[in-house]
């Protein structure tokens, strides 16, 4: 059914996808796991990054600058969500949904129309394809994504171990203790949520350049994909320590994309993708609860927020 060359291509393609969507998963990991801040801005900030990249590249801006601008735009989106939460006390889930919905209109405004092609524009991948040895589409995509991923990994791995990074991680663990230690947890929350959405928008900007177009609806379900990737990474690798956690998230994204690619190759209708991803996350969230229920452990009622 699956020829060896097909297998190789699937693995390579999933590796590339695991890296570019991995930025998004790292962002989701930062908010959901590190900060315990359920942030749904992702569906909007992913497209925001893509839209900003597309418009700038079409205007002739250097694709690396355009990619950085996407990251900056994502930071701003995260900034708004976290300000709504910390300064106006709107619950995180609602604040992020509000920004996500608002971003749909903003993204349409940026793009001017629902989709933009980038096929003949100069992108980071078209530049990479001019380097010797990187002529094949899969190779230059993979190498380009890998270089970016290494940079992002090194920065995050360094930052999360700094004094500020530690305060950020502690905020999601025990906010009361962190305030008691003299840290303004509003600031760490704002920093974390902004950084996370910067990563998500970076992912959107890179994906847009790789696939050669932007669609205003391309963000639907991205938050669930990110969650699925994080859950898979944690379940498969049970990582300890900052570096391994980050790598596990990237690896989890790779496994998720691989499973999806194989399923599509085996005839799954592309339209069913979201349903299956949602089911995957529901199972992953429900199984630990059901296990405890079977063991008759006491469990608190489900949080509403």
């Amino acid at each position, binding site marked *: 059914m699956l020829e060896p060359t097909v297998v190789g291509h699937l693995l390579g393609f999933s590796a590339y996808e695991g890296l570019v969507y991995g930025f998004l998963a790292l962002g989701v990991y930062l908010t959901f796991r590190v900060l315990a801040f359920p942030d749904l801005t992702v569906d909007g900030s992913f497209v925001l990054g893509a839209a900003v990249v597309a418009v700038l590249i079409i205007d002739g801006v250097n694709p690396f600058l355009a990619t950085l601008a996407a990251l900056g735009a994502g930071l701003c989106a995260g900034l708004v969500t976290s300000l709504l939460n910390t300064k106006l006390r709107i619950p995180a889930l609602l604040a992020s949904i509000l920004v996500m919905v608002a971003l749909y209109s903003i993204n349409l405004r940026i793009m001017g129309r629902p989709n933009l092609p980038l096929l003949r524009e100069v992108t980071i991948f078209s530049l990479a394809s001019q380097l010797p040895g990187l002529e094949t589409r899969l190779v230059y995509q993979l190498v380009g994504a890998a270089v970016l991923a290494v940079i992002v990994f090194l920065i995050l791995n360094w*930052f999360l*171990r*700094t*004094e*500020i*990074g*530690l*305060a950020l*991680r*502690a905020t999601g*663990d*025990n906010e*009361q*203790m*962190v*305030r*008691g*230690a*003299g*840290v*303004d*947890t509003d600031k760490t929350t704002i920093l974390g949520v902004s950084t996370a959405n910067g990563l998500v928008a970076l992912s959107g900007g890179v994906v847009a350049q790789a696939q050669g177009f932007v669609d205003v609806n391309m963000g639907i379900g991205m938050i669930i994909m990110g969650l699925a990737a994080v859950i898979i990474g944690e379940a498969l690798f049970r990582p300890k320590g900052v570096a391994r956690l980050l790598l596990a998230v990237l690896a989890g994204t790779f496994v998720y994309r691989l499973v999806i690619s194989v399923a599509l190759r085996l005839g799954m209708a592309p339209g069913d993708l979201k349903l299956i991803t949602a089911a995957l996350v529901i199972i992953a969230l429900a199984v630990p609860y059901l296990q405890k229920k079977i063991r008759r452990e006491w469990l608190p009622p489900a949080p509403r927020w």
Partner: protein
Amino acid sequence: MSENKNLLKLRRISKVFSKGTVDQVRALDKINLDINSGDYIAVIGSNGAGKTTLLNVIAGVYPPENGGKIFVNDRDVTGLSEYRRAHYVGRVYQDPHVGTAAKMTIEENMAMALLRGQPRGLRAASNKQRRDLFHGALVPLGLGLENRLAALVGTLSGGQRQALALVMATLSKPAILLLDEHIATLDPRTAQIVLDLTDMVVTREKMTALMVTHNMELALRHGNRLIMMHKGRIVVDMNQQRKADLTIHDLVVAFERASGEEFVDDNVLLRPGNVVGTSDL
């Protein structure tokens, strides 16, 4: 710094909860209190007397009402929020979970505590020098935690976590240490260890401490000053000399005289010899 200088001054501190509803509670009622440098104050009082609220106001969790003022070393800190006041205040809570972060290692927890009230930057949160410092601070506990710096705090027992919380609260040598029934949920043996350690740290570092407790025996034996609260007011304030020969019975009499009420807190009366009090919640 002279020994008798007022380190902490509270002026007309009031705090009302659920204001304007049938559940209105006057937790603190125009309290004035001068705390000298080196005071180690046991704070007792029945449930709802305002003990925890007093600590919360000192820590900056809520601001006082109606123009109440708080001064640390004659500096007005009334307007400073909790995190801005952390420089002056270390705190150990009743629940060990509140004072420590479960999903981080002992080393990471201590690195958080070390920089209490100081600016945090982009330096590495921990290094060899800081690890040595953490190691040295944990050795006196005698719990072996110094050899488990990389262990997640969530894997420690409640007593170990509370001992760690105490070390963390004092690591940056804050001017004021607030202990909110910090041994109430521990088993008697661990409670004794944490209590001995508290005395040791407070004495060694010449700290100024407020220790809230439900236990009169404890309040008599520990600290060099004792205050008793009732309905948001301080009804008894004794220095070390007056406290020295006191019995629990004397305290009860003092309470009844000061408050004009009969003393009816079973928590305090029924188990005078037991260091394990009950919850203030």
